[in-house]
């Protein structure tokens, strides 16, 4: 699933390790989510959204809406 996590992290000058510590996950998890290799669970997606003060859909791109051209 595509997402804006890398961009949001870069805007705050956080390293993957910084973000991992804030989310209480491993650096590999952050890397896997950023590169779209792993889709986080709903609780983790909420933690990410709350950390950036954004809605989940402002961070993660729905595959359905992307394929239909809605976004």
């Amino acid at each position, binding site marked *: 699933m595509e997402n804006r996590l890398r961009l949001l992290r870069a805007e705050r000058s956080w390293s993957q390790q910084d973000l991992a510590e804030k989310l209480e*996950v*491993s*650096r*590999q*998890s952050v*890397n896997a*989510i950023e*590169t779209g290799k792993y889709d986080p*669970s709903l609780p*983790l997606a909420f933690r990410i959204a709350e950390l950036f003060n954004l809605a989940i859909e402002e961070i993660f791109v729905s595959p359905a809406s992307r394929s239909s051209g809605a976004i």
Partner: protein
Amino acid sequence: MFGARWSDFTPAQRAHTRRVLWLLLIYVIVLPPLVWMRANTAVAGYIPALMGIAASLPVLGIFASWGRYLSDERDEYHQTLTLRRNAIATNATMGAAVVWGFLQAFGAMPLVEAYWVPFVWVVIQGMFGCAGAFARGSKEG
């Protein structure tokens, strides 16, 4: 390059690795004297059964450690990777055991001791773990 550094391990992975290394050490210490006793002494009665159980206990401990790891792991990504690896290793090992069993039954393959089945499971699991760590390390630079 290979990206699996000790500092990259989650606390649950570090604890599991420590447990497995201790159990392997016990296995390496316990097995040779048991094998020697079996080959060179006249053990009888319930002693061979006890020896077999003693040899298998460290390996049982390793499987128990896997269960404990999956329960302790708080990082959902690593938990998912481990579950996927375990599922692949289980399917491949069971498949190989079934094929070998029938080949053996039809006389096409020799008898293989059953304790090789978990050994194959651990090897397949480790291979996928190393391949995954290598792939992640290469992509992360």
